């Protein structure tokens, strides 16, 4: 069609809501700018992601957006684009090799830290914590790192379980159930994304356990809803994937129009609880 520019997008995955939102942001802004997007997803497979970038290069796209499977490993793909002088932008996860025009992301370590700090406050610095983890992805490793950093100076906050929930709700539910079996006196759970947190919530509800706090990550609508309904899920780290998406396209538009773009474009992260969500809703209805 009559698109001004064609942009190749290599997502990390499309199996998670976060990336659906990021994609939605990309699409809505691209429509405004009259860009055509070619969206692919690697589903955590680095080799596949590089192949996708190579396909973009073969297709001679005008720019490439990558959400790298791995920050270093994506280097060869980026270099390939560099060789053909196709500008590369990264979103959400940075690349440490190859030349990237601009990186647009929220900081996963900072997000993890927010979750940790929230728990420190909520538990008054003492208690038993479990992590429903998915330690196969860099962004998750960063979240957990930030989370642990925040707890580091509170020796009475103990991480008593760290299980793999695969980042999907059904497996997270199974893992959380086992954790609850082993630890009757658990005080809090950190889910590394909302599927993990909601899986943990399913487990807590199944056991009718009360007094336990869950913290999620991403504030997807089902999670926000659970927070509003005063379930065990009390708070969520929010990134704004849609904003990451729109900002990424805006940055590209700036680049094409010859403006100078910064090497990193930070997108805010925050943490929301019931009060914050209600405030936001109130603002929206105004």
């Amino acid at each position, binding site marked *: 069609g009559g698109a001004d520019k064609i942009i190749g997008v290599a997502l990390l995955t*499309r*199996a*998670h*809501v976060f*990336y*659906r939102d990021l994609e939605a942001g990309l699409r809505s802004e691209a429509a405004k700018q009259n860009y055509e997007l070619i969206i692919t997803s690697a589903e955590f497979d680095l080799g596949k992601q590089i192949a996708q970038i190579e396909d973009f290069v073969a297709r001679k796209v005008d720019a490439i957006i990558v959400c790298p499977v791995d920050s270093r490993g994506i280097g060869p793909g980026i270099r390939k684009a560099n060789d053909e002088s196709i500008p590369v932008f990264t979103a959400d996860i940075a690349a440490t090799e190859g030349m990237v025009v601009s990186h647009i992301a929220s900081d996963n370590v900072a997000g993890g830290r927010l979750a940790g700090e929230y728990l420190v406050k909520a538990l008054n610095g003492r208690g038993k914590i479990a992590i429903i*983890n998915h*330690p196969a992805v860099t962004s998750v490793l960063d979240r957990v790192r930030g989370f642990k950093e925040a707890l580091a100076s509170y020796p009475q906050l103990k991480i*008593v*379980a*760290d*299980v*793999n929930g*695969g980042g*999907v*709700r*059904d*497996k997270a*539910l*199974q*893992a959380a*159930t*086992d*954790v609850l*079996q*082993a630890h009757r006196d658990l005080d809090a759970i950190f889910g590394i994304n909302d*599927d993990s947190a*909601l*899986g943990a919530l*399913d487990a807590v*509800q*199944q056991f009718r356990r009360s007094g336990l706090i869950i913290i999620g990550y991403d504030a*997807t*609508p*089902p999670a926000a*809803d659970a927070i509003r309904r005063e379930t065990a899920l009390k708070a969520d780290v929010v990134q704004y994937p849609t904003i990451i998406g729109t900002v990424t396209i805006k940055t590209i538009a700036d680049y094409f129009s010859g403006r100078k773009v910064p090497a990193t474009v930070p997108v805010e992260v925050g943490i929301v609880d019931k009060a914050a969500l209600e405030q936001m809703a109130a603002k929206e209805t105004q």
Partner: protein
Amino acid sequence: MPVERGKLTALLAEYGIGAAFILELIFFSLLSPHFATLDNLLNVTLQTSITAIIAVGMTFVILTAGIDLSVGSLVALAGVLTTVVLKADVPAPVAYTLGVGTGLLFGVLSGAAAGIFITKFRITPFIVTLALMTIWRGTAFVITEGRPVWELPEGFADLARGRILFVPIPTLIMLVVFAVAHFVLTRTKFGRYVYAVGGNSEAARLAGIRTDRVLIQVYILSGLLSALSGILLASRVNSGQPNAGLMYELDVIAAVVVGGTSLFGGRGTVIGTLIGSLLIGVLRNGLNLLNVESYVQQVVVGIVILLAVMMDRLRKR
């Protein structure tokens, strides 16, 4: 006397994996105080029920020397379809009937499609069901745009969360499915035909068995039970997750094969499958209770499966 011994060894050979399972139970009981509680054991059966129900259908399929890789995607899409329909603006009883009906019907249709491709076009089951696996997974994502289906009517979650006496409903369903399947396999004409087709399909045909029909029925059964599991899972997580059931196919096939069913068809039992499923389920549960690190867990799971099957083989000598 020799007949006696023959019977005994045959029994051991058939349930050899049971010994491994009992060892496993003892082992975890000793190591974790949380393991051998009624609550936790019910919990394990609840967790296992989802894959175990699928494994029943898979046992039938593998007995015919086939394979069904589409089960995991079926779980996802059946869950998605059911939950999408559930949200329709109709009275609750209608919505439930329609929703569950749609999910199950989809399972039946998918199984029928698989069976027809396999029998009428003579495409090997591996390819047919691999294709269906990617097709249904893709479809689940297309329908939901990658987002879970949620805000379901009150009460849907009770299906999987409810208990009768103190036994979780999915556990009960699993037990019923196994009992019926065991009966069907050992006592009915259909069961006999399943073994015959798997043992020697050409000979079965020449003995007057409509082998194509048996195969189609077997894949329909597998589709139906996968869809049932998908609905139960959706109820457990109270949402339709397009990414549910990832990699279930391998877990389920492992349970069936650990349970002694031959991938070359004609040999196996659903009792073996039940033990195989529980063996793997208990292993995961026990390791989580012991807080074994997730990477290390993988290593341990692999080793234990090898050891268990090895025990089984040594007994059979």
